[in-house]
């Protein structure tokens, strides 16, 4: 128990002293997760909307599959991305294994099911009468879809927050495809993993607290936007 209190003190110390290595990995954690969350949202919100609005054979099976992948272990995604981008793999030529780029891609793949599934769920929660009302007011199909997305905007923002949360908190994928290289691909979660395995419990707890603080700040910002 003492470790937790010591860890808290250490966290405060690291933040106040602007410890360069901690700042560096915190900054990298943020950059990678914010990037992957934004990019994935840009793809998944339109894609999820399309799946929701159009009816096609196998739609139910697809949604079922998407929800199943909510539970995919991060290390499995890591393995998958590793095998693809390894030089021995199909996209090895791109030479992005063990770089932050690979980590962003890995996190994007990881949070895609959650973003898709929750987007579809958010849109399903919108009253059907909204669609009728919009169309009766002369909205084209596209305008109607945008109106529905607009009605669901609160739930959509919650989706993005969820996606970001899953991205910034994962270890397995970042470790496998990033390699936890000091000064290059080390982020807070992989650093916690390493420090814990070295027995540096205080430092690990401190890093954990810093990660939560970052997440709190990001979520507060997103919440403010959500309230608008």
């Amino acid at each position, binding site marked *: 128990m003492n470790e937790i209190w010591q860890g808290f003190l250490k966290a405060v110390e690291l933040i106040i002293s602007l410890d360069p290595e901690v700042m560096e990995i915190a*900054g990298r954690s943020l950059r990678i997760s914010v990037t992957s969350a934004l990019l994935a949202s840009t793809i998944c919100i339109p894609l999820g909307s399309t799946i929701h609005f159009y009816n096609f054979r196998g739609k139910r099976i697809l949604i079922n599959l998407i929800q199943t992948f909510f539970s995919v272990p991060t290390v499995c995604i890591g393995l998958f991305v590793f095998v693809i981008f390894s030089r021995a793999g199909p996209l090895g030529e791109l030479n992005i294994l063990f770089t932050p780029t690979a980590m962003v891609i890995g996190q994007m793949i990881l949070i895609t099911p959650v973003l898709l599934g929750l987007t579809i769920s958010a849109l399903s929660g919108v009253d059907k009468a909204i669609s009728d009302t919009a169309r009766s007011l002369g909205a084209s199909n596209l305008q109607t879809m945008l109106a529905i997305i607009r009605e669901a905007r609160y739930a959509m923002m919650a989706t993005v927050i969820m996606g970001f949360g899953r991205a910034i908190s994962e270890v397995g994928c970042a470790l496998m495809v990033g390699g936890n290289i000091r000064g290059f691909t080390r982020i807070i979660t992989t650093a916690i993993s390493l420090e814990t395995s070295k027995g540096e419990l205080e430092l690990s707890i401190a890093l954990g607290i810093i990660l939560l603080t970052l997440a709190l700040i990001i979520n507060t910002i997103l919440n403010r936007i959500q309230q608008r």
Partner: protein
Amino acid sequence: MKKITSLLIALVMLVSSVGAMAGCDNEEASAVSPLEPQERLRVATTTSLYDTGLWGYLEPMFEEEYDVELDIIYAGTGAALEYGRRGDVDVITVHDKARELQFIADGDGIERVPFAYNYYLIVGPEADPAGIAGMSPEEAFTVLMTTGSGQFVSRGDESGTHGMEKRIWANAGYEYTAVQEAGDWYIEAGKGMGPTLLMASEKQAYTLTDVGTYLSYKGDLDLVPIVDEGDVLLNVYSAIAINPELHSDTRSEMADNLINFLTSPDIQELIGEYGVEEYGLQLFIPCAGAEPGA
């Protein structure tokens, strides 16, 4: 409330950019672009070279001299060999002669260049419940196997150290599968050297370790040397450059530079002096490319 939002956004951007700048000090140019302007050399290393801090010590020196980014990837010998086979790294530094020779025979590596060595030892609780202190490694293992009077934590991860452990079992006349089934006293950790030592300390068990990691380990270890004499306990670290013919973008020139660096007289001297002041013992004995006679 809008003010608080702007404040928080500013804070986030500050952290990100301070992080980026701090990262620049730590040699990072751009976070996400795959086209880094600076050359990067990837090395997969066995955990003991990393856990002792030797790589952390040598890395900046090499980077400065050759103006290159060194990416050290913490693996185990087994994982490092696999990365090497796949061409995901340019150099591997490992310590399992038999597998290294196979690696080269398979055409995956060019040449095996030993650059340092030390010794393995069996460490354990001061109380020594199995009474194996001072025995030879094979004798000690035999006692553990037959009496089950002490717990043993194995690396269990196909690392060089794990390979050494298996060789001792074989020397003592046991099939490794039999050892794995022998009982609850045999624990397969599946971890790197440092974490394995921690576990052994926690459980007050015996384990096989290289002297470097054992000495330099930052965690509190409640373990003492139990068995440290035996021909078999020689631990040779070698660097192998990946065969550029198999993977066209291997940076073979820089890989050669690294190997030359590791075997250069100045660096060899530094390797030999590493940790002496702190621990009173050499952690690594330089051997400049030549196979050390045991």
